[in-house]
């Protein structure tokens, strides 16, 4: 049974996620089969069973429903306890962590009974394993990665946060429990799981970061009020989420407003065949067609004097406008290549296989997808445990609607309650205490956030700053036996279940001890060590540890990602850019792209200045030169579309001088 990852990833971004289908999609994503659990006859109690009891006996607080009766809740708790205990008796090397029970409760409320244990086993062994060893170190490792990612995506926010906390500890619960501890309703957490389960385990870091980025303004306010601890409260609680698209759907009219030249150049540049495994959907819609793609496209643009202010802002520091100068072309392209590089890396590392043309497709109509409506329906009946309906859980409330003109459904509930508890400086109910800070209540009306757009942003973030991004230092933080490295889209590359269980006990191979120097990126001259190399080493480390399959799989994957080797691309990248330059630039863009969570206007403007236009400008000069020197690209646009499969080494020779050509050639090769 093969999983169509791309389709599912797109699907997971839509309102409602997989809807009722998740009951059979999750088991596929987890490679779980309802095997007769014969081997589970081990009845030796697990060392953590006492702790498990302590937690399950106070579980089901948030969902399925706050109104659950006492007896309902008690029987759910018993069922949960039984399920967790069966898992640990079957896999005694794993250790229980507080919060695991929250994850399990989501599975239990979603999946058919006969699949629950099998799914839980796979999830534990191949996703959660890092956290199921003896300590917290692995998740602290992920916090370090999260910190690096925040810094990449929004340096300003990162420095604000660093003033109050060394590591983003507020994200701990989200990383550890896959958001299940804090997400207020079952449909919401199910959708979050839809998103996470069809992505590599590291996706949780991107989602956690996207949430942090979305709360920048609130953080700023608290900073001004000098409320450090409150920042922890703010960021460790989730914003109010609604499983709906952003109010005025900005995307559909965008393509229509995109200039015709874009369309034509897009088709000219679009490779005829990408050599990828068969895609199910005819239009290779990338999982993230909206902002980031357009952002990427627009970013390195060469012409367009009519830039918007905001775009201008983000690009000013890095290059100057004159389009004709060769220098400018050379100057602006590298970043572009880097972005491309990163995408490639995403493919390899995560197996995310974005269609190569994805950033060349501003003219695609991203959201005109057959799926949305279907899913929207699903949404309504989206709970597999039919006891709840979203209408019950998502009462529309006007009072909490802060300024959004559209009627928003709003998830009531414990979240609000919790937010009040943890983020409001409290008025004093107790007799002997008195409110001395009447001023506060800074967060009584937390902004409402669209879950689909949050997920989309997380997904875009992962494309922009893939796990191999040198400044993330992932491979210097997580060890070769972390799920970050052992998970694969290809289930045959997974360690087998027994191996995986044993891996949980090898902390030294899951996460490296903290070495501040290794991760100090302050100078941002990350040229010296790129994460690609270390990533390769990490994989070899796994291999060296006795798993030959892995190495083989790695190679296979490299092959899959077409003609260039990582090293090759990496070389180009090193020559082509100073990492901090694009970092700052992309950082600025992310910053800008994230703040309001809706930016149709900006998109439209940016779209006018697509890279394609720039590419076309270069095309004439570049292809002519290249045609002579490389001798393979025939002519102009035809060459572009044809995909002649140049040997990468050739590019090296001309690279310095012919950056733009190489950039184009990349597409050629695809």
């Amino acid at each position, binding site marked *: 049974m093969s999983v169509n990852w791309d389709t599912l990833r797109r699907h997971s971004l839509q309102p409602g996620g997989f809807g009722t289908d998740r009951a059979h999609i999750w088991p596929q994503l987890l490679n779980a089969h309802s095997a007769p659990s014969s081997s589970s006859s081990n009845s030796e109690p697990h060392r953590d069973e006492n*702790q498990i009891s*302590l*937690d399950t006996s*106070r*579980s*089901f*607080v*948030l969902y399925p429903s706050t109104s659950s009766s006492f007896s309902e*809740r008690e029987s759910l708790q018993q069922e949960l306890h039984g399920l967790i205990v069966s898992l640990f008796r079957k896999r005694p090397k794993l*250790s229980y*962590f*507080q*919060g695991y*029970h*929250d994850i399990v409760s989501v599975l239990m409320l979603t999946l058919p009974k006969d699949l629950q244990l099998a799914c839980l086993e796979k999830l534990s062994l191949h996703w959660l394993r890092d956290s199921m060893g*003896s*300590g*917290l170190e692995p998740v602290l490792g992920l916090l370090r990665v999260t910190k690096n990612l925040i810094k990449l995506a929004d340096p300003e926010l990162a420095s604000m946060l660093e003033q109050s906390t*060394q590591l983003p*500890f*507020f994200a*701990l*619960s989200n990383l*550890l*429990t896959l958001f299940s*501890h804090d997400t207020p309703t079952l449909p919401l957490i199910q959708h979050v799981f839809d998103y996470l389960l069809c992505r590599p385990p590291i996706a949780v870091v991107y989602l956690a970061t996207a949430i942090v980025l979305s709360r920048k303004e609130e953080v700023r306010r608290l900073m001004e009020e000098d409320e450090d*601890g*409150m920042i*922890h*409260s703010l960021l*460790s609680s989730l914003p109010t989420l609604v499983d709906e698209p952003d109010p005025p759907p900005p995307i559909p009219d965008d393509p229509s407003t995109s200039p015709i030249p874009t369309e034509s150049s897009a088709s000219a540049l679009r490779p005829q065949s990408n050599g990828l495994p068969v895609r199910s959907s005819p239009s290779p819609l990338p999982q993230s067609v909206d902002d980031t793609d357009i952002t990427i496209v627009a970013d390195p643009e060469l012409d367009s004097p009519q830039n918007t202010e905001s775009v201008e802002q983000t690009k000013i520091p890095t290059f100057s406008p004159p389009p004709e100068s060769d220098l400018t072309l050379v100057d602006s392209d590298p970043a572009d290549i880097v972005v491309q590089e990163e995408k490639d890396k995403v493919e390899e590392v995560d197996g995310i296989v974005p269609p190569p043309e994805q950033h060349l497709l501003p003219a695609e109509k991203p959201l005109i997808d057959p799926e949305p409506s279907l899913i929207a329906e699903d949404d309504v009946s989206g709970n597999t445990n039919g006891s709840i309906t979203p209408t019950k859980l998502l009462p529309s409330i006007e009072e909490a609607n802060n300024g959004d003109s559209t009627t928003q459904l709003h998830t009531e509930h414990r979240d609000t309650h919790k937010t009040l*508890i*943890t983020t409001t*400086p*409290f008025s*004093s*109910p*107790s*007799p*002997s*205490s*008195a*409110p*001395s*800070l009447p001023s506060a209540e800074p967060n009584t009306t937390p902004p409402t956030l669209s879950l689909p757009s949050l997920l989309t942003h997380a997904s875009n973030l992962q494309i922009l700053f893939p796990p191999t991004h040198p400044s993330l230092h992932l491979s210097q933080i997580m060890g070769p036996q972390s799920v970050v490295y052992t998970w694969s889209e290809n289930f045959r590359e997974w360690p087998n279940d027994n191996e995986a269980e044993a891996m949980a006990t090898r902390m030294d191979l899951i996460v490296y001890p903290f070495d501040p120097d290794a991760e100090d990126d302050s100078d941002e001259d990350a040229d010296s060590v790129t994460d690609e190399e270390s990533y390769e080493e990490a994989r070899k480390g796994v291999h060296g540890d006795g798993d030959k399959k892995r190495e083989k799989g790695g190679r296979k994957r490299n092959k899959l990602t077409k003609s260039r080797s990582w090293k090759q691309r990496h070389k180009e990248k090193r020559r082509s850019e100073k990492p901090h330059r694009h970092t700052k630039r992309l950082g600025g863009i992310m910053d800008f792209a994230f703040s309001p969570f809706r930016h149709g206007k900006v998109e439209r403007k940016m779209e006018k200045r697509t890279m394609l236009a720039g590419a076309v400008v270069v095309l004439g000069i570049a292809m002519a030169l290249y045609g002579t020197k490389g001798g393979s690209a025939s002519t102009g646009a035809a060459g572009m579309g044809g995909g002649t499969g140049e040997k990468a080494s050739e590019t090296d020779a001309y690279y310095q001088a012919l950056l733009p050509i190489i950039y184009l050639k990349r597409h050629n090769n695809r």
Partner: protein
Amino acid sequence: MSKQYQFKLVLLGESAVGKSSLVLRFVKDQFDDYRESTIGAAFLTQTVTIDDQTTVKFEIWDTAGQERYKSLAPMYYRNANCAVVVYDITQSSSLEKARTWIRELQRQADPNIVIALCGNKTDLAARRQVTQDEAKKYAEEEGLMWAETSAKSGEGVTEVFTAIAKKLPSVASPAARPGAGTRTGPGARQGVDLNKQAGTQGQNENCNC
């Protein structure tokens, strides 16, 4: 002239002894029969009025109880002015755990930290495993404040925090500079029975200085 103090307080103790419930009662005067486990740590604030002139704002870090979260605790107690170490009077093992926390605080935390040992769940006194005498004796030996509470009924909760506020050196010692932490003044290490003291008004009677 009114004085306002601000202190950092950390809650420590075994899993499920009622740390979060204690804070919830103190801060919101609420109680949930089901209080979900704390992952990592939670932050809350509450202000208590000592007298007409003096208020103390507590910045409270409520930590997770499971052993595996232990390595995070130093972050929260490192600069804490006071700590409430909670045990469950119905679980004698939880007092053992409290002792290890107290030893750690005595070794690692600020030497001036004010520590209160707190036996929670007095509403379940019928299942009591830890006697008052045992806990009180231990507290006296170690120079800790001690009290029993019920987050469920509210019994003793506010009193614990108020007593801590009064005991904090800069509050207790008029010479200390308001607003800052507790760097001034000697460590107060004298056993105090909060339950006895609760009704009285002597805000300085426990001061060493």
